[in-house]
């Protein structure tokens, strides 16, 4: 079965029209004075989904999270949680919990007391609190640290306490604000998978805010890409990467080569795009572009082949000069300068130890790609 990217997902309620959305943002706008943080944004999130809000700082992703938690109220529009309008409901009455970017651990309480805090507010019986706290400590592997104060813990341990505290109440939705932002790279990679396991095991809905696209790609079922308070695209990681909706998304996630041009001809299956310099590209899946449209053809570096001679079977091939090379061990990155001056980045996996016909700086080279290797972007 053909599928976009290399992963086939069995959990995909967003493709099922009868599925009921769990969290709905309906034309939500949030203004702080003159500044519009969130602009007429609509979004749906499904139960048990791991949903990521991805964007650069100031794009409104944290504001969305804070509105869901109840710390900020939308200026207009509404937010529904499990069918209930959340307007006017204070944070302490919402069935959501948040893990703060700073962790916000109470410095005057032990790890145990931090985790028990939310349960005590609920008025849970003492014995049950003790049991739940013990469960949580086990879940995040901090049993020996129960009596420590937050300042006696390492960054990674603090992150776990914050996580345990926020899931202890078994919220319907867990909001995570840059949950791995303060960890070093290695710990971050380990923790990503732990978070995913946790979400699976507890069957919670996770909404995570991040500026790290790799983090979002690894963990999320779906990603919403935000820019200036608006949603650019909501899709699975594979769709975001292989079928970006706009030039912005293509450029924001991963590396991309963009060829600006016009659709010269269009039939059911393929389109011909003429670049400014006259070069022609034949593409499949041209979307809704029609003849005469100004479009961009976006193609990822790893989908481009670099060879010293023009491959005979290639439909799309362009000649240029090797401008720069980088050998990274697992792969090699080429920068090829085309005759019209455009720089193309291509990467090749070094699946063999010995390369025949290796390229060097300033060599003449051909780049080539298949008609379905890239996408046509009209926006």
């Amino acid at each position, binding site marked *: 079965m053909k599928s976009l990217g290399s992963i086939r997902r069995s959990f995909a309620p967003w493709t099922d029209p009868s599925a009921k959305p769990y969290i709905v943002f309906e034309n939500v706008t949030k203004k702080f004075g003159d500044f519009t943080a969130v602009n007429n944004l609509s979004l749906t999130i499904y139960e048990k989904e791991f949903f990521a809000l991805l964007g650069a700082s100031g794009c409104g992703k944290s504001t969305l999270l804070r509105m869901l938690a109840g710390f900020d109220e939308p200026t207009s529009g509404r937010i529904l949680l499990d069918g209930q309008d959340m307007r006017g409901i204070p944070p*302490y009455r919402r069935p*959501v919990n948040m893990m703060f970017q700073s962790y916000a651990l109470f*410095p005057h309480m032990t790890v145990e007391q931090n985790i028990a805090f*939310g349960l005590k507010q609920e008025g849970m019986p003492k014995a049950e609190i003790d049991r739940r706290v013990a469960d949580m400590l086990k879940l995040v592997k901090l049993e020996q640290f129960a009596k420590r104060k937050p*300042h006696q813990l390492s960054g990674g341990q603090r992150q776990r306490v914050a996580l345990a505290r926020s899931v202890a109440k078994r919220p319907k939705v867990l909001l995570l604000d840059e949950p791995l932002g303060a960890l070093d790279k290695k710990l971050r990679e380990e923790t990503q998978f732990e978070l995913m396991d946790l979400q699976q095991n507890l069957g919670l809905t996770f909404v995570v805010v991040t500026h790290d696209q790799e983090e979002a790609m690894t963990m999320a079922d779906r990603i919403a890409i935000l820019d200036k308070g608006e949603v650019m695209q909501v899709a699975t990681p594979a769709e975001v990467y292989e079928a970006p909706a706009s030039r912005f998304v293509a450029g924001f996630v991963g590396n991309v080569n963009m060829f600006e041009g016009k659709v010269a001809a269009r039939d059911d299956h393929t389109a011909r795009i003429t670049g400014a310099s006259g070069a022609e590209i034949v593409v499949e899946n041209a979307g809704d572009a029609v003849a005469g449209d100004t479009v961009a053809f976006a193609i990822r570096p790893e989908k481009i082949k670099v060879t010293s001679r023009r491959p005979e079977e290639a439909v799309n091939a362009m000649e240029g000069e090797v401008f720069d090379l980088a050998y990274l061990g697992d792969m090699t990155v080429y920068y090829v300068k085309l005759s019209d001056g455009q720089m193309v980045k291509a990467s090749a996996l070094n699946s063999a130890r010995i390369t025949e016909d290796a390229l060097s700086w300033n060599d003449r080279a051909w780049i080539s790609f298949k008609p379905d290797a890239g996408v046509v972007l009209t926006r």
Partner: protein
Amino acid sequence: MSTATLTSSNAPAPADVKPTLLNALTSRLVIIVPYVWLVLFFLVPFLIVFKISLSQTAIAMPPYAPTFTLGDGIAAFFSNLRQLSFENYLWLTEDALYFNAYVSSVVIAGISTFLALLIGFPIAYGMARAPLTIRPLLLMLVILPFWTSFLIRVYAWIGILKPEGLLNQFLIWTGLIDQPLIILNTHSAIFIGIVYSYLPFMVLPLYSTLEKMDFSLIEAAQDLGCTPTRAFWKITFPLALPGVVAGCLLVFIPATGEFVIPDLLGGSQTLMIGKTLWNEFFSNRDWPVSSAVAVILLLLLVVPIMIFQQAQAKAQEQGR
């Protein structure tokens, strides 16, 4: 240094020793200076006062006996020493005036401190949450009253509080009252005076602890199910406690010994130890008894504070 090791390998080169010795000396010196200060300006005066409190009144100059002078000889020194006694302290226990004055001072200072906390906390909290750009201005406003003489500010309150004063004129004008309120020369006037005068000492330490607090902690508490009021008592207040303690001590200690405010605003009826002390000293010219009053006042204030601070230091060592 490398040349020194080349020339003589065993004995440390003189160049190596001198700087470290100098360093040790300077670091000692840094510690010694405040101690010398404390000994000269706190311990020595205290010992002099303590000695006077053990003497007897005399019609002389100075008005107590015995007096120790260098060159009296050892025999005279011992006979003088034998004249010292704790009689004045016994006298303090015999006259209920002193006990009542102590209790009344502690009560008045305690109530004033509590009122200052009640008023100072919201001010400090508001300042700590104010936009960063206007905080220096707010701090300035808190400190500004210090630019006017303390005495003048207390006098100004007489003008405000007296029966025909500004406050009564205003209240009668608004129609809230028809008879002037009697505030001056009551305990209320003392509370107003102390709270007004010492409020900055409450606000500043509170502000400095609240300013350091991460306000996302309060959001976290609310997120976990706390109402704002509960979050205040569970999070804000415990974290502000060092500031609360510092502020309360800074108000309570001077307020207990306060003399000017009860004298000017409290009238002749108010009994406070500062006033009693002043009377003993200047009206009765009984230096030994007034010294005894001062020593007891000091013990009353310093000992609990020292015990408290030791406990706090211990708690801090155990990790906040």
